[in-house]
């Protein structure tokens, strides 16, 4: 049963997995190689530019998580999940298998980024005091993928009604935020919430921080 689920998910997403893996492999290589020629003579500039590239890692993780979640659930959503609901499997188990299958599809993407990071940082001949972090960056990327895939999977596997409820709650929150802002301009509910979610121990903390492949 797990294999059958994995097989249909692979069939739905294999081209996406390959494209995302290529992007993940290329990202660290491109980021380092493009800047390294200038970086030999101006190390601070090189590190600054590399830091700017850091923005693309969580972005790629987000795009990959969303695309794979959409890819594996698109057909079910089109059929209003009827097929899944008619299968003789407890729903929690079916969802778990689908989730595990989705995670497996993300493994090549995470591995590709790790391989790209290793390739990008090998043989650079860096000056003393400068270190490379291919494994740490790849681990952070994998963790971010895991986290964001959880969100995207939950969103895509939910019924339209549940998604509607989530959107209404979000809309209500934004309305409250605007109302509070009008009454008390110094109170920014939205920013406070984003900060709480995005900094440790918030669930989105891995997205923040520095995404440095090479650092002092």
């Amino acid at each position, binding site marked *: *049963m797990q*294999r*059958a*689920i994995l*097989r*249909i998910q692979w*069939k*739905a997403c294999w081209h996406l997995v390959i494209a995302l893996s290529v992007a993940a492999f290329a990202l660290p290589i491109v980021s380092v190689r493009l800047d390294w020629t200038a970086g030999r003579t101006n190390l601070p500039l090189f590190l600054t530019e590399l830091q700017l590239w850091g923005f693309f890692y969580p972005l790629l993780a987000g795009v990959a998580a969303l695309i794979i979640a959409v890819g594996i659930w698109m*057909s*079910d959503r*089109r*059929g*209003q999940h*009827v*097929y899944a*609901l*008619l*299968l*003789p*499997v*407890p729903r929690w188990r079916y969802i778990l298998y689908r989730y595990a299958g989705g995670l497996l599809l993300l493994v090549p993407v995470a591995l590709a980024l790790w391989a790209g990071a290793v390739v990008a940082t090998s043989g650079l001949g860096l000056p003393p005091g400068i270190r490379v972090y291919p494994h740490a960056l790849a681990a952070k990327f994998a963790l971010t993928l895991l986290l964001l895939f959880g969100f995207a999977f939950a969103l895509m596997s939910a019924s339209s009604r549940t998604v509607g409820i989530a959107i209404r709650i979000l809309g209500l929150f934004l309305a409250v935020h605007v109302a509070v802002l009008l009454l008390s301009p110094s109170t920014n509910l939205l920013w406070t919430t984003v900060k709480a979610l995005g900094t440790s121990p918030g669930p989105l903390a891995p997205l923040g921080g520095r995404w440095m492949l090479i650092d002092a």
Partner: protein
Amino acid sequence: MTLAIQTQGLQYRASREFAIENLSLAVPAGALYGFLGPNGCGKTTTIRLLLGRLRPDAGTITLLGHAIPEALPAALARTGVIPDRPHLHRYLTVQESLDFHRAFFTEWDTVWATELLASFRLRPGQKAGGLSKGETAKLMLLLALCQKPDLLILDEPMDGLDPVVRRDVLAALLEYVSARGATVLVSSHLVHELERFCDWIGVMDRGRLVVELPMSEFRGGNKRLRVSSAQSLDMTNAPFKVMARDRSAGTVETWMVRGWLPEMTNWFQRDGVMLREVADLDLEDGFVELLRAFRTSDT
């Protein structure tokens, strides 16, 4: 009588305007049960409730002895379903669809699946998304049959199919049912479609069950009577139910009645009343008059 499907006091409010009300179905095991009703009467909602896709507000559902929704997976393992609209993964080929479906059913019959593929003229390599409406219907029936279910729930399976495909689908269905002794609940708004092969019938209207009885009783008990000089008749003690009474032809009235038996002719032999003709009402007329009578009594 063993029941394959049983609901008791089922209630479900779908919207402000529509609700399933106090629905008590009893589908005997081994029956070919036609679930009849006009569009929007609640057939599909009832089927969704039976299959655990909707949670009832009140009442109980039992499928093959399994309480729904508590034992839904066990019931679905023995139930083949054709839902109201195609639900297959469009990017899979026919063969991949079979392989995927097979993985969930332990009794899957591979040999028969191959035979049905050939007899339905379905190509294994063809994408499910590229199948015609008739081919999709055949594939859905193939999937439902080859899992060897004890119960088949088919929601308007023939809707929009051409006569040839309809015949193929029906033949495969009847072949399976006669070999396995399975129960079939098939919904439709087309009376003639069900008349051909159902032995039980349940009629629904406005979220309620109007009648549920063997097809022979439904067919045999519905008559069109032509009665003359009936104005003076006291109808309160009539041994049958008058569904409709047409007085437009002067002294000769046309009645549509239910529950008719031959000995009831005696009831007319008084006060100069004459029963001129007793004719069978075909199923469609019976259905229409039944609904008309139900709606009249309802308002």
